[in-house]
């Protein structure tokens, strides 16, 4: 397709950018330069990833833009990267959100700006690398590497309880990943390969699959997160700076879903079938339980964090019903959630920058001072509760459809999330935006400035594009998902 390695360029451009930024000395004058440098690098990465999207051949179900170099001579470990329909949009999501993170931190981050920007650029490299990896160990390395910048972002630029939250986040996710590492090593010993495609064709014994599946599950269930492994998420979100929450909700949660599709379904089809009752029970609990918990929250960010857990419950149901609508619905739901929850956190960030509190009771009547903000927040809220025509609907509906094919009961519970999400989001919106201004401090709050509008508008556009022309996103992922499903059905003799 191209005679230069576009994928590696995309992965390492932010990293190189970060290296360049290291050499800029941070002074009052150069801070703006640092910000602009970081922004332009992340935008450049986004352009490159769009090029990948543009050149992507959606009739090809296999990996494209493949690069493969032998890394360690002693054992079969390759720097092997590629893109297929499943990872394509995860990469785009990462590159799309990073510029907004940098823009959103433009004024709110005042200390250690240089290090902050470097952390984000490095984080971007790791995220893209992780979604591109075709080699399991490479995937693992990037997956673990992602934790480091994120740990620093929460721990250094976070809120009051940032140390507690960052440690909880790091250790919790690390625990899961270590189990996954053991599984990877064991798989290598049996099959003598770490290539995802070869592993898919290597038929593991069912009992082995079950143990391996559990090890991977430990990692992904914590990442996504599923009930009851979700308690790190609200803490991490509350303490993280706005941009940290955006990446956390927008991309890092998706690693779990991506991993379930790629590894659990792809490599361990029999174990996935064996464990579906477990996954569904946890998912249904997640949908109902966390939706209710979200209702009781007094902290704005915590509420959205809990709503994320509920939305991810829908994703896991969609993935493990393993039919075309279910998995595609789960993928759409992840993409939509990536944009919508990121946008909701940005919305929180807008007023947090002005008032420095996330307590819902502090606010009320914002619409009187911030009409534009009210509109933007309203649209994202509606997308979050899955109004048809917005991005949230397509994924949710397809998932319910897939669930109904599987079992009518499952569809029943999945759909109950539709009611509950409306309750807590509308209730939040009413408390924050509507009413009259009672708090004296809010009487001088300003509406969105032009920088914030520049952040919000592309996100809004994507919310509608995904709602009205979802085929743009569904088409490329169709064939790879179909392959996984066929593989799954063959393995389970359906």
């Amino acid at each position, binding site marked *: 397709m191209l005679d230069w390695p576009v994928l590696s360029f995309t992965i390492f451009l932010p990293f190189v950018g970060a290296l360049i930024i290291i050499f800029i000395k941070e002074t009052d004058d150069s801070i703006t330069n640092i910000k602009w440098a970081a922004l332009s690098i992340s935008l450049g990465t986004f352009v490159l990833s769009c090029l990948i999207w543009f050149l992507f051949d959606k009739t090809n179900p296999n990996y494209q833009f493949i690069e493969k170099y032998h890394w360690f001579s002693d054992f079969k470990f390759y720097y092997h990267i590629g893109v297929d329909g499943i990872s394509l949009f995860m990469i785009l999501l990462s590159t799309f959100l990073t510029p907004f993170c940098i823009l959103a931190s433009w004024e709110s981050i005042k200390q250690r700006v240089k290090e902050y920007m470097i952390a984000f650029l490095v984080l971007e490299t790791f995220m893209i690398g992780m979604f591109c990896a075709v080699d399991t160990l490479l995937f693992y390395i990037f997956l673990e590497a992602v934790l480091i910048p994120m740990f620093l972002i929460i721990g250094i630029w976070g809120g009051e309880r940032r140390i507690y939250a960052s440690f909880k986040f790091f250790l919790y996710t690390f625990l899961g990943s270590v189990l996954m590492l053991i599984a990877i090593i064991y798989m290598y010993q049996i099959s003598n390969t770490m290539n995802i495609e070869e592993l898919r064709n290597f038929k593991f014994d069912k009992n082995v699959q079950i143990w391996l599946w559990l090890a991977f599950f430990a990692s992904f269930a914590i990442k996504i997160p599923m009930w009851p492994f979700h308690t790190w998420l609200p803490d991490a979100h509350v303490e993280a700076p706005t941009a940290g929450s955006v990446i956390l909700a927008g991309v890092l949660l998706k690693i779990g879903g991506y991993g379930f599709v790629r590894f659990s379904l792809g490599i361990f089809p029999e174990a996935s079938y064996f464990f579906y009752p477990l996954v569904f029970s946890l998912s249904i609990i997640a949908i109902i339980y966390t939706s209710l918990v979200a209702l009781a929250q007094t902290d704005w960010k915590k509420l959205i964090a809990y709503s994320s857990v509920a939305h991810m419950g829908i994703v896991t149901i969609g993935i493990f019903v393993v039919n075309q609508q279910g998995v595609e619905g789960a993928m759409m739901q992840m993409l939509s959630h990536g944009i919508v929850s990121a946008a909701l956190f940005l919305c929180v960030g807008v007023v947090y920058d002005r008032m420095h509190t996330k307590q819902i009771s502090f606010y009320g009547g914002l619409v009187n001072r911030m009409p534009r903000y009210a509109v933007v927040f309203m649209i994202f809220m509606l997308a979050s509760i899955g109004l*048809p025509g917005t991005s949230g609907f397509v994924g949710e*509906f397809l998932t319910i459809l897939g669930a109904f094919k599987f079992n009518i009961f499952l569809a029943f519970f999945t*759909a109950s999330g*539709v009611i509950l999400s409306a*309750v807590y989001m509308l209730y939040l919106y009413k408390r924050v935006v509507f009413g009259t201004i009672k708090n004296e401090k809010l009487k001088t709050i300003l509406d969105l400035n032009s920088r914030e509008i520049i952040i919000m508008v592309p996100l809004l556009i994507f919310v509608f594009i995904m709602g009205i022309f979802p085929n743009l996103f569904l088409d490329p992922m169709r064939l790879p998902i179909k392959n996984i499903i066929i593989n799954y059905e063959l393995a389970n003799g359906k």
Partner: protein
Amino acid sequence: MIYWIVFLPLAGFIYCAFLGTRFSDRYSQVITCSFLTVSSILSWIIFFKFFSTTETQTFHLLNWITSGDFLVNWSFRLDTLTAVMLVVVTTMSTCIHVYSIGYMSEDNSISRFMGYLSLFTFFMLTLVTSNNLLQMYFGWEGVGLASYLLIGFWHHKESANKAAIKAFVVNRVGDFGYTLGIVGIFFVFGSVYFDTIFSQAENYADQKIHFLVFDFSTINLLCFLLFIGAMGKSAQLGFHTWLPDAMEGPTPVSALIHAATMVTAGVFMVARMSPLFEYADTTNIFVTFIGASTAIFAATIAITQNDIKRVIAYSTCSQLGYMFFAAGLGAYNAAIFHLMTHGFFKALLFLSAGSVINALHHEQDMRNMGGLAKKMPQTMILMWIGSLAIIGFPFISGYYSKESILEIAYFTNSSVAVYAYIVGIITACLTAFYSWRLLFMTFHGNSRVPREIWNNVHESSKVMIIPLVILAVGSIFSGLFFADMFTGSEKEIFWYGSIVIKHDHHHMPFIQTLIIKLSVAFGIVFAAIIYFYKKELAKTLTSYLNPLYVISQNKWYIDELYTKIFVKPAFFLASFFWKYIDQKSIDSFGPDGVSRFINLLARGASRIQSGLLYHYVFIMLGGLVLILSWFVYK
């Protein structure tokens, strides 16, 4: 042409949203009103075309979702049913847009209001023109959204915000059923397109499906799920609580959304799906039962309410009940006919009430009205016309539609039809009673309006009266003009397969029609006696029937019941889950527990590391002894 009809209101909304505040409000008003007028003229043209050419037309716009074998497009459908709904929606909407210019003239976000109205109209039009269930759902949720926005239009009012949320959430509960219905239909029929579903409906008439622990007939279950959605949207018994509260919104909103158009979406949907509902015998009984029960239930509340808008709101519930029981008995044409005439007279009633409310500076309590006929003769006449239409005064629109509904109930041979017929007649009597109660309390008798307001009361401006006159004309003549086509001899040619039509046509025996008329007359006379001639009688009656009166006054305590069984437990569970399960169980035994345990372990381990030489020597010695003894005993 259909694209113009549907997308012109959207264009109006987009103008209001992006440019509305930049230019004068007058532009927003002119643009939205003229767009709507064009749209309604086009709708009437299409409607008249359907008198002769009756082919169903479909228009394909774009692909929407393709996933596996699931395929759905943005596409439109034009048949008689759609044409009727287009006319109803655009005409009402145009009248109400124009009326709003006058009604909202003192508000400070006129442009936003006009934009919302246009947005609503757009969604309603996509709902009625849709060619498949999913796009219909788009319109369905969209009108819910517009309704939410408009109920909460005065967002500084706490009660308005609460009512808006309530409306949205109650509708969502219905939509939950509706979503499952769509999904189920796709599962069974492999398509969400109307044509495909209807052509296969017959094959599935006897199929069974397993749900919960029972075996249901497939079509019964699917229709039941769809009907749950219709109950939510059309505020039927159990789901009705949001509608009276929705009266917190400005009155044009109540007229447009919560009387003439949106709440009838449920009836429309049932009529649209009539080829499927035909095979759902059990569900049809349920539909009839719910419809009839709602009709009388809402009427019993309406007779004691004092808020003028709430009376009309309950009356709307009640009339929707009529439509549903007609639909449940298979008289979809009668249901749609009543939908149309009801659209006219209910919009008229609401807007006239709005005219009164506006004149009295947002006073809605009828106990503070009375004698307004002297000050507002035009409004009074219009209100009388509306009331005559709703009770079914001979040769005025409501007469034809209501009569045909009762007729079908009379001629259908089943116990639920008998129930519906009796309830229908009692409700007709109650309808007459509360309508005349409203007229007497508002326009006649002595004025109870405070003096300073009374002196300022004047007839509403032309811009408000003219739409009312149009609606009044519709209320009087729509029955006379369309009776033949909708329910009379030409019905089969007119509907041309767009809905299911029962072929038989009888006339009710004279004695039965007389009973209906007498019961209506009784209602009027009774209202006249109590509220006009012998006012002390009202007090005596209330004290005699006190328990009944209190129940009716408090709307059968349904709201309180729902608060007790749904709202309170939800919040209780929410904080219980959060405080006790999330924090006290998962966290304190999970991550925090582990870290506490490790801390403890570390502290224990660090105690060994005392830094004192003789401790270390002692431990070394102990170790040495152990190792040596192990070697010795091996």
